[in-house]
């Protein structure tokens, strides 16, 4: 009978394990319930207790993070926002990685049915959410709780936002990122031009000559004539839009856009303009003027090449050039970056693609009215000119310091500075200049030089922008054709043609294949949308 106790022991262990498995399953429900209680309590506490008795409500906000860590509920940024709105915010750490890591994490959260309260959708994933009723209807609440957002965004932009409602009822489901100025631009290193003794190129041929000089000579002056990359881009052909824009191809961060060609709304990737642009890019690649590693460059590698004083010319966001210049200066203090504009090509009207509605910036999960109102109050905070300084400068002590009554911006440090989560999402030249003024006022002399260089770039790129006809086109036009929506087919043909593995004639095959595998239907939907908004 010596083994009896042991038998009992095993049995008990088995029973414990069994209950553990069972309770593990019901754990999710318990969590949801308590979650519901919490928000109810928040609602109930409203009428009775004034101010202090009320528990702070927190909104989970997701966007692209600049910082390398999570944004905490009691972190400095959340506390600053709380002080004005009574609503705090937080976000777990989610890597950005050109958006691919972000969208994967976000979609995982969506798949588990637990959406963040307020988030930035990516790659058009808001369309499916709208269709399934997972997003809050903002039509009534937005003008009431975020009047500055409502007033500052032009009505015509709201019309486009309404056209995205899948039910056709014109409800508002997202808040757009609005820019009424030229956001993107192409740049060239003036100090490199000086080193090779050339002028700023104005035409395509001059540009090519300059790139050849960068390739052949020691343009960066480090003693090695062969470490210069004349022009570079990123994997999937991203961020070299100026090479396409020169030929009048509507392009948004490397993704073809919709614009009028021969008077009709057309996917820019299937136009003769695209063919000409590809031929040009193929030539650049063949002559090793375009970075041979372009299609393998991750965002971080691309950035590193620029920072290490290896790149002569590239395309990116005008407003961000101060960070680039700041970093290049660590390697080469003589850095002088100027706007390239768009070199002219005979027979083509080049432009840089402007979109007033850059993309959907914020959507709110349809949880309960209080969550929606809280999320809107955060957006209102960001759009209210009264808070413009805080929105722009960030938190004292972390993003800037006050010295002798002057605000000094601290150098950007993603390891220590929290992301300015509620950065301004409505900007025209007025706001841009105001922001620049803030920055210049609070700069040290070295910083001032960088900001002035940046501001000159922003100003000089303005005339090259053109708002494309497909501005704000809803991603639902691609429903059922995900390879067209992801631009997968375009990316395959484009990259293989540019690296010279396929001849340029393959482009005609692409147009044909694209049209046949859904492009016709997508084009019909796009044109129907265009007629609907009646531009």
């Amino acid at each position, binding site marked *: 009978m010596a083994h009896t106790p042991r038998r009992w022991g095993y049995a008990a262990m*088995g029973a414990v394990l069994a209950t553990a498995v*069972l309770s593990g399953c019901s754990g999710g429900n318990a969590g949801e319930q308590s979650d519901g209680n919490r928000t109810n309590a928040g609602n109930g506490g409203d009428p009775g207790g004034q101010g202090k008795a009320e528990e702070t409500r927190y909104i989970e906000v997701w966007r692209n993070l600049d910082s390398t860590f999570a944004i905490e509920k009691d972190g400095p940024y959340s506390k600053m926002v709380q002080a004005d709105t009574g609503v705090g915010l937080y976000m777990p750490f989610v890597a950005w990685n050109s958006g691919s890591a972000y969208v994967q994490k976000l979609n995982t959260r969506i798949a588990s049915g637990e959406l963040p309260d307020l988030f930035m959708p990516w790659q058009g994933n808001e369309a499916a959410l709208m269709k399934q*009723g997972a997003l809050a209807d903002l039509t009534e609440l937005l003008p009431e709780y975020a009047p500055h957002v409502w007033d500052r965004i032009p009505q015509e932009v709201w019309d486009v936002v309404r056209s995205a409602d899948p039910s056709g009822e014109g409800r508002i489901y997202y808040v757009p990122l609005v820019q009424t100025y030229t956001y993107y631009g192409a740049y060239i290193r003036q100090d490199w031009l000086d080193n090779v003794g050339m002028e700023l190129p104005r035409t395509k041929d001059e540009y090519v000559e300059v790139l050849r000089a960068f390739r052949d000579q020691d343009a960066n002056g480090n003693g090695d004539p062969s470490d210069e990359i004349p022009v570079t881009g990123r994997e999937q052909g991203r961020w070299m839009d100026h090479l396409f824009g020169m030929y009048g191809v509507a392009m948004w961060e490397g993704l073809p856009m919709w614009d009028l060609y021969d008077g009709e709304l057309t996917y820019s990737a299937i136009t003769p303009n695209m063919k000409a642009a590809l031929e040009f890019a193929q030539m650049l690649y063949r002559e090793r003027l375009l970075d041979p590693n372009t*299609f393998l460059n991750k965002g971080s590698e691309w950035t590193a090449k620029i920072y290490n004083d290896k790149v002569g010319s590239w395309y990116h966001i005008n407003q961000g050039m101060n960070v680039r210049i700041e970093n290049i200066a660590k390697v080469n203090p003589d850095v002088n970056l100027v706007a390239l504009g768009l070199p002219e090509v005979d027979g083509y009207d080049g432009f840089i693609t402007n979109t007033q509605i850059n993309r959907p910036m914020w959507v709110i999960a349809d949880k309960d009215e209080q969550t929606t109102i809280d999320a809107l109050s955060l957006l209102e905070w960001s759009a209210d000119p009264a808070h413009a300084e805080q929105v722009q400068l960030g938190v004292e002590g972390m993003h800037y310091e006050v010295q002798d009554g002057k605000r000094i911006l601290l150098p950007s440090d993603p390891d220590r500075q929290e992301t300015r989560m509620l950065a301004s999402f409505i900007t025209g030249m007025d706001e841009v200049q105001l922001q620049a003024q803030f920055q210049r006022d609070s700069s040290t002399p070295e910083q001032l030089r960088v900001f002035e260089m940046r501001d000159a770039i922003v100003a000089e790129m303005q005339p090259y922008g053109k708002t494309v006809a497909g501005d704000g086109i809803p991603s639902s036009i691609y429903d059922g054709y*995900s390879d067209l929506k*992801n631009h997968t087919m375009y990316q395959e043909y484009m990259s293989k043609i540019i690296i010279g593995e396929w001849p340029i004639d393959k482009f005609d095959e692409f147009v044909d294949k694209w049209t046949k595998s859904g492009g016709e239907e997508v084009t019909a939907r796009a044109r129907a949308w265009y007629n609907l908004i009646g531009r």
Partner: protein
Amino acid sequence: MADAAQARRTSHNTAVGARPQRQGLLRELRNYWPLYAMAMPGVLFFLVFKYVPLAGSVIAFKDYMIFKGLAESPWVGWKHFRAFFEYPDFARVFRNTLLIGLYNLVFVFPFPIVLALLFNELRSMAYKRTLQTIYYVPHFFSWVIIAGITFDVLSNTGIVNALREWVGLEPVLFMQEERFFRSIVVLTSIWRDAGWGTIVLLAAIAGINPEVYESALVDGAGRIRQIFSITLPLIMPTVLVLFLLQIGHFLDLSFEQIYNLLTPMTYGVGDVIDTYVYRVGIIEAQYSSTTAIGLFQSVIGLVLVLGFNSLAKRYQREGGLF
């Protein structure tokens, strides 16, 4: 599997005893209830995490909308299967999947066997253990890391191209050329998992009775002879089981591996069912169509397992999985 065998044996015994089945079961429960209690967690695990989710496969026949729930989503029949087969690049995706699956069987699968045989021949225990540990390590790297290393090693400033330059050859951008893609997939698979795969085989080799080797030695068999006439035949059942387990996943390749190595320039040879599922399903949140494709992969896998299982049984008694 052991449980099933046990159950078969006991039920056989009670049948011999010629008692009514029902009473026998009750009696067994009373007599052996601690054993049943111990089996409970395992059974529950499979029920809850493996069998219950199977019912979720119905979404393959529905237009599943996550916020409307299972019941509210409309039935659509074979729509998602049809959409998959009518996908313009279906032929390409399917061919790539078959080819890479085949390469995995032909090149990747035998590698651990060879490696295990080599390990087994090492005399110094310390050397063997150290070597084994080194070979296991890559298994714990995620594919993201391994793909990162691969891109680096093969980049135009990487070690391979540095060597090529050294002997006067032009650098080659391996990752953007179709002709290298499948070889890279095979090589990275071997690099990551060959060492890990030896564990089961080494255990099987350790289980071989040393007397067999001793008598072979007496008969004058050398090391090579012993490998081919003793070790290999005796681990064959284990190899067969591993093979059957592998063939069940013939169509579902390692998504993480291929996705991380893939670029638009290599879609032609590397776009497989799983990467397609990712684009359509995960990015687009089309859970129904991904389930349909998953179901398709599982059915093919099941057919292959059943087919090869019967072949295995013909090859040797008790050879198959079941």
